[in-house]
Structures are given as structure tokens and as C-alpha cells.
């Protein structure tokens, strides 16, 4: 049994706006995203018989939308949950447990309307052995593996600073990006932005925004009759390795990312060299560096030198390997660093993969994309999921 080419994404859309949305609650963000994705697919709410959601429980969301799905999944392992849902929805569709799957994200990450922190109780393992030592949000935990990577491989802060600089270049080409009008910056400017949590400066850290997005999935056969170009699931994988950052087995490689990637590549029957377009969840500058290595796009410890290997175009502008005009396009919407980040960003990465595979990306369209890979972590390299999509 494989899910390869059994199911397709036929609807993909975000909330009307992203950024600061004080007029929309957590539930309203879900509802608007669901409505927009169904309109994109040309399907009705009544067609939906599978609901997948994490920030809202699938029961809470079904009630809000007034539907009674026959298949639900509320797996909540952090920002990659939506990537697991694509895999789970493909499984449910292939098994006949649902026909129209609706995967929904909504998060009032900035305005914080009807949100609760995912820190657990003071009696939880993290409440006893992490929080009392001053962990204060993602910048203080996602940062912990970085200096170990620097130590073992000679990676530098300047090499790492190429990630936000390259990603900003994509945002400048995307009119929806929160940082669309904010201009370029150099890797050196990343290092000179205010220190947040060493080794992270302000420009190493993702945005904090309100927003949502949703995907509609059906069987590959049914997808051919719908209005948008079908995007097929070629392969997918998932894994979870730990919950607290201190329990990470090896701080220079994320076991869950390696395991999820291995499954996805095997199922899709492709290798990293076959991937035309990459979405690597960028909560921080370092995050996609780990994934470039763990998914095999570069060797262990080689992400720093790879990113710093830039060239100048004829006008003297820096061309990054992962930026516009580079040989490995990564995070083409502008990423969590310059497009939007609500807290659980995975949905936005998936939607950009779909937009690129449909050829709808406008000025930032990567020419000739046939295979796109989206990968994300859940919490601090704890869980992970990989989705490989194709339009062919």
C-alpha cells in the first residue's frame, strides 16, 4: 500500500489578509480560510466529509462550520501538523474513509484572540525541567542546537545570516508578503540587528502574525474533473523524536526530519536532485540549514558554506543559491522570515508549493516546476513531516 499519486490537492487558499487582523478570532480565521479554499476548489461545504485541524480541534471546527464529517484528525505536533495532515488525508482518501478532505489552519498569533500558550502545566515534563530555567518562547529553544553545529562543523554566524537575506529577496517579489515593501538587507546587516537570544539576532527570527490557510484534497481521479490544475501527493513522511529541546539526541541533526524525509523520498521514488522547488519551514535562520542537511540537499555540516557561496549578477546585486535566480529555490513566498508566520507556519509552506506547481506565482514563479518538496518541524526539531508534490 502506498499513497503515491492516490490523492491530490484541488483547493488551496489563505485568509483574505495576513499580518495584523484584530477583527478575526482564532475560529474566524479558520472559517475564512476554509471558505476560500473551497471556493478555490469549486466545491461546497456540504461536500466535505473529512476535517483535519490542529489550532482548533476538528470537533470545534466542525461545529463552527456546521458540518458532520465522517473522518477527523486533530494531530497537533506543532507547525508541521498540516504536513502530516496531507499524508493522513491521502491515506484516508485512498482507504475510502473520506472523499473530500478539508485541512484548515487559523492562528491569531499576533492579536492573540482566543489563543492559549502551548507550554503545558507546571507538572508536565517541560513545566518541571524546561520552563524553570528561563525558556521564554521559541527564540530561546530553537536556538540551542546552533552553537553545537557551529562547534562541530565550523559553521559561522555570517554563513547563517545568508538565510534571512536570501529569503527577503523572495518577499520583495511577492506582493502579499508582510515584508514586501521593506527592502533588501545583507547578511552583515543580519549580524548587526539587535541581539534577541545569542546566536539569534532580530533578523534571524520569524515574523509574528495573524492568518490562516486551508487545503482541499480529493482522489486523483476526481481531481481531474475540478477547476484548478491538480497537485498530486507523490510521497510523504512523518516522525516525532522528542518534546523538550534538551532531549534532542544529536543537536546537529534532527532525527524526525531525517526519518520523515527518508520515507517521503522512498515513497515518491525521487531523490533530492529531482526536486525543482523547496519549502523548508523557517522559524529562524538556522532552521532550514538543518533541513538542507537532514534531507540530503547538502552533506552534513555543509549548509553554511553552501549558503555563503553567492555570486553577483551583471548589476552587481548578490544572487543567493536559494534566492531568486539561484540554483536551489527555497521559501519562494518569502518564508516565515519575511512572508508570514502565525506560530504553526506549515500550512503557508504547503500553499506556496501548490501555487508554484500551478504556475500561479507571478513575479516569483520558478520556471518549469514539476516537483516541489515541503518540509517542516513540530516545535523545536521535535516532530517533522515531509510532503513531495507534483503537477505531472
Amino acid at each position: 500500500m502506498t499513497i503515491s499519486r492516490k490523492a491530490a490537492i484541488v483547493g488551496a487558499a489563505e485568509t483574505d489578509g495576513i499580518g495584523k487582523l484584530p477583527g478575526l478570532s482564532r475560529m474566524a480565521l479558520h472559517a475564512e480560510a476554509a471558505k476560500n479554499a473551497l471556493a478555490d476548489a469549486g466545491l461546497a461545504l456540504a461536500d466535505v466529509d473529512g476535517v483535519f485541524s490542529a489550532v482548533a480541534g476538528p470537533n470545534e471546527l466542525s461545529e463552527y462550520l456546521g458540518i458532520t464529517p465522517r473522518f477527523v484528525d486533530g494531530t497537533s505536533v506543532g507547525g508541521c501538523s498540516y504536513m502530516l495532515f496531507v499524508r493522513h488525508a491521502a491515506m484516508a482518501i485512498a482507504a475510502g474513509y473520506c472523499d473530500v478532505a478539508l485541512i484548515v489552519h487559523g492562528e491569531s498569533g499576533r492579536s492573540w484572540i482566543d489563543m492559549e500558550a502551548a507550554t503545558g502545566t507546571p507538572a508536565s515534563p517541560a513545566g518541571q525541567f524546561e520552563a524553570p530555567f528561563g525558556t521564554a518562547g521559541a527564540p530561546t529553544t530553537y536556538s540551542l542546537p546552533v552553537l553545537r553545529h557551529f562547534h562541530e562543523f565550523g559553521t559561522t554566524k555570517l554563513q547563517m545570516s545568508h538565510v534571512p537575506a536570501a529569503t527577503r529577496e523572495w518577499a520583495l517579489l511577492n506582493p502579499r508578503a508582510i515584508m514586501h515593501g521593506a527592502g533588501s538587507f545583507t547578511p552583515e546587516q543580519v549580524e548587526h540587528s539587535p541581539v534577541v537570544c545569542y546566536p539569534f539576532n532580530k533578523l534571524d527570527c520569524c515574523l509574528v502574525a495573524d492568518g490562516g490557510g486551508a487545503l482541499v484534497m480529493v482522489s486523483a481521479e476526481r481531481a481531474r474533473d475540478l477547476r484548478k490544475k491538480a497537485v498530486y501527493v507523490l510521497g510523504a513522511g512523518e516522525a516525532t523524536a522528542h518534546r523538550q529541546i534538551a532531549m534532542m539526541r544529536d543537536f546537529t541533526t534532527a532525527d524526525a526530519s531525517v526519518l520523515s524525509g527518508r520515507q517521503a523520498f522512498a515513497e515518491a521514488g525521487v531523490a533530492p536532485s529531482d526536486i525543482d522547488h523547496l519549502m523548508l519551514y523557517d522559524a529562524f535562520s538556522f532552521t532550514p540549514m538543518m533541513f538542507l542537511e537532514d534531507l540530503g540537499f547538502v552533506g552534513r555540516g555543509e549548509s553554511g558554506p553552501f549558503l555563503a557561496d553567492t555570486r553577483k549578477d551583471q548589476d552587481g546585486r548578490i544572487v543567493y543559491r536559494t534566492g531568486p535566480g539561484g540554483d536551489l529555490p527555497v521559501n519562494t513566498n518569502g518564508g516565515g522570515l519575511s512572508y508570514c508566520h502565525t506560530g504553526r507556519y506549515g500550512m503557508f509552506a504547503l500553499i506556496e508549493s501548490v501555487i508554484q506547481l500551478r504556475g500561479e506565482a507571478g513575479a516569483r514563479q520558478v520556471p518549469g516546476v514539476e516537483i516541489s518538496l515541503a518540509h517542516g518541524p513540530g516545535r523545536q526539531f521535535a516532530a517533522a513531516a515531509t510532503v513531495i508534490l507534483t503537477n505531472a
Partner: protein
Amino acid sequence: MSKRSAYKGALPRPTPETLPFWRGAKQHRLMLPWCEDCGEAHFYPRSLCPHCLSSRLDWREASGRGTVHTFVINHKAAPGFETIPYVIAVIDLDEGPRMLSNVVVEGGPTPDNVRIDMPVTVFFDDVSDEISLPRFRPAKGVS
């Protein structure tokens, strides 16, 4: 006002399987659970050995020595950590297990005076009547 009543940081609420650790910390002893079947120590404390699932655990005092496996220096004040910046570190205990804690450096931490693999020793911070937190400082002779 005493330091104890002034503390505003997150306080752990011990559970049955972690109580010996926190009782030990209150007495300024770093206690670890050791498996009587496979002989391995583990951290954080579980109800059974995560290496072999044995429930035969024996609590013993650890040396309190370790090295810095990796660390960050946080510049944003958090409750209980009003003196910034402060270090959050993963400590490799000499007995094997790893734990998250703080490394307290005289005069404040910098990227030069806290180093990967630096030897550290435990001390205990009495933050409430019930809770003492194990933190670390550079081992004597280390600068």
C-alpha cells in the same frame, strides 16, 4: 523582602516520579534515577527506565559535575530572569544524562566566557520554600 518571596519565575510542580529529584534539590543534592536492571542513569526522571522499561529504579546522588553541551545567551527578560542576559544551557552530566539548566558566570555571560564543552559544577538556588533549582557555574580553575 527575602529573595524567596520575590521570585517570579516558573516553578515546577513535582509529580510522583520526580519527587525524589526535587526533594534532593531542596537538600542541595543532585539526585538521578539509576536502573537496577540495565545499570543506566536517566534524566528527566521517568516512572520507568527509558532504556529497558524496568521499574526498578534506585535514586543516587550524582557528582554535580558536567560540561556545557550547547548553550544560548538570552537577552530578553523572562519572569524570574530579570538580570539579562542569562545563559540557558544543555549540560552533559558526568554520569551520562543531559539536563537543561543555567550557567551563571560572574560579571555576566558573553560568547567568550561561556564555551561549548566547558566544565561546570552544580549549585542550588533556593527560589521558594519548596523548590531549589539546580544551576551550574564554571568549574574551579576554568575561566
